C-alpha cells in the first residue's frame, strides 16, 4: 500500500518535472538534437538539474542496507559494455530523433490529450513486444 502511494506520488512529481522543463514538448527536444541548426540547449539543463539532485541523494541512499518500505534495492549490477547495449541505445536514439519523444514524455503527453503522443505510446509497445519475440524469443 505504502509503496503504491510512493509510486503514484513519484510519477506525479516526474510528470510535473517533464512539463515544467518542457521536455514533454517534442519540438523542444528536436531543437536540442538539432545541433547544426537553431540549437536549444535547454534539455542539457534538464539533465543537469536532475543529476545535481541524484548525484547527491544516491550517495546517501545506496549506503543504506535496505530501502525504507522494501527489503531490497533493485539496482543493475551489470558492468559489461556489450553489443545489445550499444546497438539498442543507437536504435533508441534514431527513434528519439525521428519523433522528439523518449518514453517518459510520450506517456506523460497522454495527460495533454495529445493524439500523436497516444500513437507514440502504442508504437513503443509494439517495439517492446517485437524485441521480446525477436531477440529474447
Amino acid at each position: 500500500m505504502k509503496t503504491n502511494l510512493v509510486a503514484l506520488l513519484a510519477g506525479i512529481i516526474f510528470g510535473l518535472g517533464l512539463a515544467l522543463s518542457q521536455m514533454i514538448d517534442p519540438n523542444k527536444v528536436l531543437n536540442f538534437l538539432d545541433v547544426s541548426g537553431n540549437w536549444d540547449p535547454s534539455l542539457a539543463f534538464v539533465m543537469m538539474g536532475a543529476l545535481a539532485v541524484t548525484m547527491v541523494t544516491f550517495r546517501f541512499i545506496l549506503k543504506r542496507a535496505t530501502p525504507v518500505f522494501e527489503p531490497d534495492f533493485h539496482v543493475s549490477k551489470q558492468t559489461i559494455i556489450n553489443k545489445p547495449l550499444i546497438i539498442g541505445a543507437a536504435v533508441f536514439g534514431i527513434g528519439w530523433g525521428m519523433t522528439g519523444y523518449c518514453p517518459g514524455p510520450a506517456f506523460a503527453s497522454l495527460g495533454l490529450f495529445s493524439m500523436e503522443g497516444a500513437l507514440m505510446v502504442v508504437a513503443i509497445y509494439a517495439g517492446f513486444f517485437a524485441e521480446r519475440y525477436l531477440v529474447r524469443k
Partner: protein
Amino acid sequence: MENFTPISALLGGALIGVSVSLLLLLNGRMAGISGIMNGVFSAPKKEEIWRALFLIGLIIGAALFQFLTQGSLSVREDYPLWLIIVGGFLVGFGTRLGSGCTSGHGICGIANFSVRSISATLTFMASGMLTVFVLKYLIGAV
C-alpha cells in the same frame, strides 16, 4: 539559441531528480520509464501495480501542470504520422535491447556512476543528433 529556457529546465530537471530519489529511497526502485512501461504487462501481478500507478502519476502530473498554468503547453498536431509510428517502434525496440532510456541510463545510471549507462547515454544522444541532421538537412522530411 532561440527559446532557451535554462531556469525552468533546471527546476523541472530537479523535480525529476526528486522523483527518482524518492522511488529509490522508499521503494528501492530505479525510475527507468521504459522498464516501468514494459513491466506493466510483463512482471508478476503484484509487481505490475506500482508500475501502473507510477505511469498514471506521469499523466496526472502533466495534466496538473497544464491545468495550473492554464494550458501553457501546446500540443503538436501537424507532424508526419509515419515518423511517429516508425520512430515509436524504434524507441520501444531500442530501449529494451539497450536496457534503458533517457531516465534509466541518463539520470539513474549516470548518478550510479555506471559505465554502461554513460556509454548508452552518449550513444543515444549522438544517434539522435545524427538522425535529426539526416532527416532535416539531407532528406528534408521535417
